[in-house]
């Protein structure tokens, strides 16, 4: 009896196994009218806050796109997102990319944030012929490899240096002040070093004098020595590039050492972060900065989406969520143009995408379209200044909401803390 039951059990098991093997392979089956997009950002690790913000931008955009009827050229197909976490580590970015492509079988990719991750990730996409739209990664080489499937909705890192030096000239002209000497303070990771490499020759070419060049280790706990050196050099303008934690530390140290600088011009990430502004409690008054985006941009789309973002996520929209919001719309327009998930056709469609300034989905002050290398050729950043605790847009002049204040009043005359 036992033997018979055992045999029957084995037979049933064997049958079940055979049936399951004939069924659909690994990965969820595609719903009839669905576009699968993989979204990879650093959701954990040191830049988690930026990765999460980026992902939220995509999520909010896709929810809106789906709610408003999906991709109409594909019968209202909805976009379904599949998330990956690259932990800001290049090898993890690659494995996550492979996973989303091979197992989840996504039709397109969005991501990542750090250039060190986007660079290999776009490589994985290119090899697998998957279109990928990159948001905030600025490393020049990402769109210099003659890749066909990579599209970047951001300017190249070397252009940031150009933007900064042009702004310094603009500042001098607009305020009628003389700016001759510059002190460069930057963290020394890959991005900081490449920024320095780009900006130093430009500064010298334009006739400014570089009186201090101060790279510092990114995780420094103590910035006193660097600020002391900067104080001794006493430049007309401090050009700074920092991430969030060090930006806060530098500003607080400048206050502690009563280092009064006529002007501080920040570059990207650290100073853009709302945690910087919130974390220095008013010490950033008169600080000018370049960033890829600012909530102070007076486009209706920006105003509406910022409010929506804040209501939903209880934290303000930042350059990363704004950028990735637009990235999702870029991809959506490509699907409207292509009318199919066929990857080659989508790639070709991406080359035809054009979202103008002020159009729905564009949160930036430049048009979203791409050249033959997948680069957005008109990409430009935004310069703002903190005046009375509010951000004022200084440049590009098309979006300016106020005039720059330079030189800044000394500490003793400012809002005292």
């Amino acid at each position, binding site marked *: 009896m036992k033997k018979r039951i055992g045999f029957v059990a084995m037979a049933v098991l064997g049958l079940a196994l055979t049936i399951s093997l004939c069924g659909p392979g690994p990965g969820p089956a595609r719903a009839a009218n669905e576009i699968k997009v993989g979204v990879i950002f650093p959701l954990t690790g*040191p830049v988690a806050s930026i990765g999460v913000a980026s992902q939220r931008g995509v999520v909010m955009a896709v929810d809106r796109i789906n709610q408003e009827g999906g991709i109409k050229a594909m019968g209202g197909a909805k976009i379904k997102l599949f998330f990956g976490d690259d932990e800001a580590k290049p090898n993890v970015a690659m494995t996550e990319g492979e996973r989303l492509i091979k197992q989840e079988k996504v039709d397109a990719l969005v991501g990542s944030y750090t250039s060190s991750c986007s660079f290999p990730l776009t490589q994985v996409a290119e090899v697998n012929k998957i279109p990928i739209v990159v948001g905030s990664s600025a490393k020049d080489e990402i769109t210099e490899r003659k890749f066909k499937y990579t599209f970047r909705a951001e300017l190249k890192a070397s252009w940031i240096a150009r933007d900064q030096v042009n702004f310094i000239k603009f500042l001098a002209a607009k305020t009628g002040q003389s700016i001759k000497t510059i002190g460069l303070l930057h963290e020394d990771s890959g991005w900081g070093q490449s920024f320095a490499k780009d900006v130093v020759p430009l500064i010298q070419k334009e006739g400014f004098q570089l009186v201090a060049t101060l790279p510092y*280790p990114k995780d420094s706990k103590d910035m006193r*020595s660097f600020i*002391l050196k900067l104080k001794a050099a006493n430049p007309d303008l401090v050009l700074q590039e920092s991430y969030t*934690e060090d930006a806060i530390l530098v500003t607080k140290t400048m206050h502690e050492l009563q280092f009064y600088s006529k002007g501080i011009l920040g570059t990207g990430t650290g100073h853009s972060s709302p*945690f910087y502004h919130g974390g*220095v409690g008013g*010490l950033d008054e008169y600080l000018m900065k370049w960033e890829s985006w600012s909530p102070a941009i007076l486009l209706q789309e920006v105003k509406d989406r910022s409010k929506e973002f804040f209501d939903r996520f209880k934290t303000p929209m930042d350059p990363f969520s704004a950028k990735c919001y637009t990235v999702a719309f870029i991809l959506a327009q490509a699907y409207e143009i292509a009318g199919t998930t066929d990857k080659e056709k989508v790639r070709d469609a991406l080359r035809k995408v054009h979202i103008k300034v002020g159009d729905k989905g564009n949160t930036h002050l430049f048009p979203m379209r791409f050249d033959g290398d997948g680069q957005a050729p008109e990409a430009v950043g935004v310069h703002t200044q903190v005046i009375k605790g509010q951000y004022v847009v200084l440049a590009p002049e098309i979006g300016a909401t106020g005039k720059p204040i330079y030189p800044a009043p000394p500490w003793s005359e400012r809002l005292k803390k």
Partner: protein
Amino acid sequence: MSIDIIFESLVGGLLIGGVYGVIAIGLTIIFGILKIVNFAHGEFLMLGMYISYYSCLYLGIDPYTSLLIVIPVMFAIGILCEILLIEPVINAPQDIQILLTFGIVLVLQNIALLLWTGDWRSLTTPLVFQITHIGGISLKLTTIIAFLASLLLTFLLFLFLKKTDYGKAIRACSDEREGALFAGLKLNKVFYLTFGIGTVLAAIPGALILPFFSVSPFVGFSFTLQTFIIIVLGGLGSIPGALIGGIIVGIGESLGALFIPGTLKQTVTFILFIAIVCLRPSGLFGAKLRE
């Protein structure tokens, strides 16, 4: 490079070094007495910072008053950790212990990430921005308080270990484990107490540095490596060694940043470390716990 700048840098390095030292004391005690390499030390610092931060935010108190909350909470967490996690591996080979404490690092970091997100948080109460001028140098008031509190803490700990019964019991278990057992000391209770104290000694500096450092779930790790260097430099298990090691590292980094291109400033720490360990392999203040 004027003498003023060097002096300012020196003082800054001294003050921050004192805090590094206190962070190191907790780690050196745990190693000296339990013989456990606790990689999660930085994460206890991080927890102390968060508890202090939220106490300040929601109760409107300052970080020093928040210690009234931080200390008992972290002491309890330390004891729980010891009972549930450390005790089972106390006699296991060292690689097992390392794996365990490394696991604690990951768990604590990700619990913090879940609870409080990856965003950087800083205190912005008026106290944070107060500057004093001493001898022509501008210093943050909170840095001075942190340094003095660190010295006080070290002194109190020293008294505790030298004069109280509990302290003597801890020293006995460290110096002569088997003898202590024979004398009737409950070894595991001593270990609970020690781990609890070590954890608190990681958390208190957290509250002290909150006014000038931002907190995120991953801030602990950047302290951990440096703390290990300090305790080896000062001598494993030695309290004065940890404090002085911390001050050496603080001053070394600060002065180093003045004279060497910024990126290389940590080489000063490492060169000092290698030099000292070559001259005295057991660190500045000897091999075993000598309190």
